[in-house]
């Protein structure tokens, strides 16, 4: 099977022949079997030509973060179907979403600096969320009109909750 592995925003064409948990993996001109075994929910032992590696993997919204010695590297694996889908443009939902400000962290809304209907510049301060004793300023990702404020001062919120919607100018 052919895949594209995007490693820290760099694409590598990989060809995998899985044989149990031993993969024959070729990444560009690297072509050797990798013995990959899972040792716990997120840790893997790798043996490559007798060399031993311990890696940890964590899933996130866009793919995986693989940690080697606690240094994280973003990895995305796409197969041919994904690549085709991409080609036909599942495009710009992301851009429309830009005016939707979500909570980057869970915490408490300690201050709201704007009102509905107000016009804001890009990077204007919208609100302050306190988490673990630290105050985090939430800024406007785009310039525009404050369409709706979804939270109240003092409210406890989860990560990714929609805080504010901004209509682009």
């Amino acid at each position, binding site marked *: 099977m052919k895949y594209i*592995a995007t*490693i*820290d*925003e*760099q694409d*590598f064409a*990989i060809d*995998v022949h*899985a044989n149990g*948990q031993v*993969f024959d*993996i070729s*990444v*560009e001109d*690297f072509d050797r079997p*990798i013995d*990959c075994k*899972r040792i716990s*929910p*997120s*840790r*893997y032992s*790798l043996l*490559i030509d007798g060399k031993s*590696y311990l*890696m*940890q*993997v*964590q*899933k996130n919204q*866009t*793919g*995986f973060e*693989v*940690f*080697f*010695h*606690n*240094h*994280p*590297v973003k*990895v*995305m*694996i*796409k197969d041919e179907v*994904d690549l085709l889908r*991409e080609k036909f443009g*599942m495009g*710009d*939902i*992301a851009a429309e979403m830009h005016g939707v400000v979500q909570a*980057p*962290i869970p*915490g408490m809304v300690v201050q709201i600096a704007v009102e509905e209907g107000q016009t804001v510049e890009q990077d204007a301060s919208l609100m302050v969320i306190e*988490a*673990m*004793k*630290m105050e*985090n300023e939430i800024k406007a990702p785009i310039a525009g009109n404050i369409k709706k404020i979804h939270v109240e001062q003092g409210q406890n919120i989860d*990560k990714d909750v929609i805080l504010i919607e901004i209509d682009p100018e």
Partner: protein
Amino acid sequence: MFERCALIRNLTQMESVLKIDGSMIRKILIANRGEIALRIIRACQEIGLETVAVYSTPDRLAPHVLYADEAYHIGEAQSAKSYLRIDKLIQTAKDAGCDAIHPGYGFLSENADFAAAVQDAGLTFVGPNPEAIRVMGDKVAARRKVKSAGVPVVPGLEEPAKNVDKAAEVARDIGFPVLVKAVGGGGGKGMRIVKEEGDLENALNTASSEAKSAFGDPRVYVEKYLEEPHHIEIQILADQHGNIIHLNERECSVQRRYQKIIEESPSPFMTDELRQKMGAAAVETARACDYVNAGTVEFLVDKHRKFYFLEMNTRLQVEHPVTEQITSVDLVKAQISVANGEKLLWKQDDIKVQGHAIECRVYAEDARHNFAPSTGKITDMHIPDGMGVRFDGGIYDGLAITPYYDPMIGKLICWGGDRNEALNRMLRALREFSISGVQTSLGFCASVLEHHAFNEGKYDTHILEEYLDEILALSKEDASDVPAGLAAVAFAHQSLDGETKQTSSGKQETTPESRWKLRGRHWSMDQ
């Protein structure tokens, strides 16, 4: 030689165990949570004391609740409704039949009213007397007290700044840059560096309003800002019989926004002569306020090795294990022994520096995203072990890291015969350490240790401002097979989990010359 010292120390520690066993404290309530509550519980259990934990609603499954002999619910998540409830804590202690309360660090540990209330309730407060807490908690009063004892303080205002003109006059007198600091402050809140007179008014105002909202006290004062300063602190122990000793220094200059991240002892900047002088100054500071129990005197030391009193922390410090590793003194047991009215078991000459210790604080935060706190459930972890490795934490698979409290989830401490061994051992232990489910500072700590400034021991409190980008860019490139390995792991994880594949958002950004490409080339050329 070392072994003999250790043996003698072990014997004295055992002697202390026997004494504590026959004395008045039998049951202690620990008014804290997290790793420090567990640290105290462990010490108590080793000397046969009963332990009582208290917990807020989200902490029902926190480690201190699991390992204490008894545990009682004291309120809701917000600290003000649980861990800061003086009335509730004292009532719980009484109901459970405790005779003492240990405050740990943070929360109520430096609250004189709490210490007084504990005593008024007929319980023993494991810490200094309320008056010492009060004096040292007021930065202006502390400064005055310490100065009168002949300990140098940073030149600056004796009184809080009344107005801009007065502050400007003092600032001109001592020379810019100056530091504007909150009277009741700590943790970097209400603090501003002012490089020129034009910025002073604005700095005074913002520092003052920040101090008011953080500590309920808007007063600020102005002092000299030191060049290439080191944050070096001296651990002291004082008994109720007037005996005071110091247990050497801790170098705490690796800080981000005044939050310490890595500490070590001895300080690579220290000389025997300076240690003696600073140790004596710390002892005098403690004597000046009739200090009893464990405490820490913090100093700033400038590039000319001139030292100035910064503040005294009237409690156990987060970084106390560093001192324990190089002196073999268990500071928590010593605290309890002192609270029992016993004499210190050590004279100043008994305290030596044995080897070197380094501590890395493990924070649940993401260094790559401006150190944003990270919450979630620990899904998988491996804690390092082996010779000279100590982890104070108590975290486990499945533990939820909530947004309500401090993001520090544990401390990794490594000891070595010398600095080099301690450093290499710490790097080894950090490589073995893995935590999944939340982002942690483990990788960041390793990068700091690998950076030449830390590695060579040539750093001051500016290390993280000055070198942050370099540190973040550091990641050990010791394996040429890594890119293929990364791909394999991600692929395996995806297929083993049978998860639906992620579709990309359509945004394609490629940096023309990322380090992975370089690494990829490097690796392919190797083959």
